[in-house]
């Protein structure tokens, strides 16, 4: 019954996403694209941090690796799919390597190691002009063609992005609902106990980083043709911090948390535009209040609100 209703819910949302940009300007389509792009990256971080319990402040650098790989490949007139594949595989491998520190250190220490990695990535992207275009960045990446269909129009590209995002979400959903998902959570909740029950903690920790990072790479593969311009500044530590913010604000370890968190980050400035210069301050205050009152994020808040009338009803009965 529960699965059934959730399926209906998902179908409604997907239908809404399909009709959302119709009759709207290109802006809305673009905005929705950037949301879906960030949602993919945030979903990856949520796997590493929310499910497996290992923090990473380097997600922006993986978006960067994916975006640079896709840009370089497509600017050389190879198809987008190849660029995306190169980017995702590269991120998987680099993510695996970044997982090694996680075998030694935890928490804040791991946060600082990954943060340092992101800063080093920025320096490399800026200094190695021959590969990355340095501070000028790379621009003019073509949007992919799917058979005879070009996605260079904003609406077409939106549907392309939507398809990729849905695919990514479905794959992630399958992962977290498979025995792996249970193993990731077990790793997060009690590593020693999980190992005593046969879990190869080392391998799973590395995998958590590798898969989460690969999702960053996929987001980068969308960002390159979406913005058609990338530069090192788009992938600096601040972006990683804001992705972390999205994941926690949405609801850590909740499947739909990052989707919601990134929606807030992208759409809130729009909703708060009436407040002009104050919007970022309002956002910051809202985040502080949310965190102090409800560390479970928006999904946690929704649960709490959903649970309250039920409790009241229960009380009335008794």
């Amino acid at each position, binding site marked *: 019954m529960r699965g059934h209703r959730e399926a209906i819910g998902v179908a409604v949302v997907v239908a809404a996403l399909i009709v959302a940009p119709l009759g709207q300007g290109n802006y809305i389509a673009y905005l929705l694209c950037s949301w879906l792009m960030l949602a993919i990256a945030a979903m990856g971080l949520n796997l590493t941090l929310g499910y497996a319990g290992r923090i990473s402040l380097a997600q922006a650098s993986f978006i960067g690796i994916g975006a640079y790989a896709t840009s370089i490949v497509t600017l050389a007139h190879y198809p987008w799919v190849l660029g995306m594949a190169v980017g995702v595989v590269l991120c998987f491998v680099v993510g695996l390597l970044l997982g090694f520190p996680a075998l030694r250190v935890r928490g804040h220490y791991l946060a600082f190691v990954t943060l340092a990695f992101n800063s080093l990535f920025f320096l490399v992207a800026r200094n190695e002009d021959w590969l990355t275009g340095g501070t000028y960045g790379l621009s003019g990446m073509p949007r992919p063609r799917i058979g005879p269909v070009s996605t260079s129009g904003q609406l077409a590209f939106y549907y392309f992005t939507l398809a990729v995002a849905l695919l990514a979400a479905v794959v992630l959903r399958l*992962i977290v*609902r498979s*025995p*792996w998902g*249970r193993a990731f*959570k077990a790793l997060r909740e009690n590593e*020693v106990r999980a190992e*005593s*029950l*046969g879990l190869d903690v080392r391998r799973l920790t590395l995998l958590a980083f590798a898969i989460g990072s690969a999702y960053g790479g996929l987001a980068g593969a969308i960002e390159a043709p979406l913005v058609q311009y990338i530069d090192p500044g788009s992938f600096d530590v601040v972006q990683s911090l804001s992705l972390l913010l999205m994941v926690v604000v949405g609801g850590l370890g909740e499947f739909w948390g990052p989707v919601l968190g990134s929606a807030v980050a992208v759409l809130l400035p729009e909703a708060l535009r009436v407040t002009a210069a104050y919007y970022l301050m309002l956002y910051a205050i809202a985040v502080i209040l949310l965190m102090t009152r409800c560390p479970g994020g928006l999904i946690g808040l929704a649960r709490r609100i959903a649970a309250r009338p039920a409790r009241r009803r229960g009380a009335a009965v008794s």
Partner: protein
Amino acid sequence: MTSPHLSVRGVFKRFGPVVAVNDVSFDVAHGEILGLIGPNGSGKSTLFNCILGQTAPDAGSVEVDGRRVTGSRACDLSLLGVGRTFQQLAVFPGLSVLDNIIFAAQEHRGGMLGRLFMRPDAGLTEEADRMIEFFRLGAVRNKLAGDISYGQRKLVDAAMAFMAGPRLVLLDEPAGGVNPTMLAELRERLLTYNREHGTTFVVIEHNMDFVMSLCGRIMALAEGRIIADGTPEEVRAEQTVIDSYLGG
């Protein structure tokens, strides 16, 4: 005589100047229930950790079914059929009771990659439900393990240790903090399980009523050495054991 299930030979471990385990050797036969007792600081937990690969002994070896496992990782031991419970509660509070119990066996099914493509429950729901029934946890099956009572969590902990069908289980203070009714229940379940599956148990326990009524054989440790080894009656009568508790 068949070969022993667990064989500990000359295990020695010191922490700085303190010798925690001093040249301990013993065998445990298949299907035996061995109780390990001794006052605080007598080296029981260190010995456990040496057997289970959590601590590397300074000398000596541990064999399971004739296979040397000294220095193995805990996950490898688990795959060899060695299960354990922890002194501190060790359930996964954010997972449901059912998921806790399913997880306890899933890592024994298929390869790492194979598990990615398995059914979400790895085909273990039925077996887990049998375990839930066996430990009478049906009422809390779908609750988060963090939301149930302490005693119930103890049962979940034990159920997890058994779920993978281990042939040797090391129980670290299973009775600690469990109320008397629940305690009788736990003892009865453990004995039944031992009878039905022939599983070997090694139990560290301070609750003497519990351990004496559960185990066929008791070994007493003091200052890192074995000071008595025999039936509960024999060990109970041993003056050196009483003295070890009362102090010199």
